[in-house]
């Protein structure tokens, strides 16, 4: 999975902000491009430290918007705030977008930017990506680039 640094940073920031509740959202991209371009942070309607769910009205609006833009959910992300950045049994059971990269972020080491001289954020927030298809979890490499146009176009995904 290839992602721009600014988008990765924004996902991590979202997870820090919502800690200790789970944060969730989508990065949409052009259909078939496998390129996560448009970050859409979503409200966690469950407002929970152990569960996340998009609000059903927000969900409809999101999918309509993506349809209108010829986009699809390239990344579906959420945070774990007390456990590792690996899909839980619930995540696996409820994963229903076989084409998406499921990104897991963990803020279990704490969500605050450690106060340091220079103020550089260095909090350890794990960021991992998985495919979840038919209950099978496959971790994939996360490749962070400054800009997508600085790398060769990813090869198109195979049809489902």
């Amino acid at each position, binding site marked *: 999975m290839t992602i721009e640094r600014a988008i990765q940073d924004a996902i991590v920031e979202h997870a820090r902000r919502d800690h200790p509740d789970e944060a*969730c959202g989508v990065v949409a991209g052009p259909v078939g491009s496998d390129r996560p371009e448009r970050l859409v942070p*979503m409200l966690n309607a469950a407002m929970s430290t152990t*569960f996340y769910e998009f609000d*059903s009205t927000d*969900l409809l609006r999101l999918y309509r918007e993506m349809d209108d833009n010829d986009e699809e959910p390239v990344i579906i992300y959420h945070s774990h705030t007390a456990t590792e950045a690996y*899909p839980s049994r*619930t995540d696996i059971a*409820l994963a*229903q977008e076989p084409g998406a990269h499921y990104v897991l972020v963990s803020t279990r080491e704490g969500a605050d930017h450690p106060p340091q001289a220079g103020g550089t954020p260095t909090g350890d927030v794990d960021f991992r990506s998985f495919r979840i298809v038919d209950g099978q979890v496959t971790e994939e490499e996360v490749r962070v680039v400054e800009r997508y146009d600085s790398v060769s176009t990813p090869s198109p995904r195979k049809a*489902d």
Partner: protein
Amino acid sequence: MAIDVRIPTILRPYTGGERSVDGNGSTVSAVIEDLEGRFAGIRERLVDEAGGVRRFVNIYVNDEDIRFTGGLDTSVADDSTIVILPAVAGG
């Protein structure tokens, strides 16, 4: 009369890959029965053992989540659009 039913990616294997299919019926329940006749197995993905909408499936009639409009008994008309979306949720 035909109702436009939007099928999410995860259920397109049932509809031969179609994103949108025509359905018939005067309630959501009847439309699902109609779809089941052509796309066997799809009902089980939408309706639970107790006969309600599955917890992690959302069905909308003209943009309204049917959980708030009478569930599977929600009426549909000729020009209605039904959208089916899997919940995005996890732990």
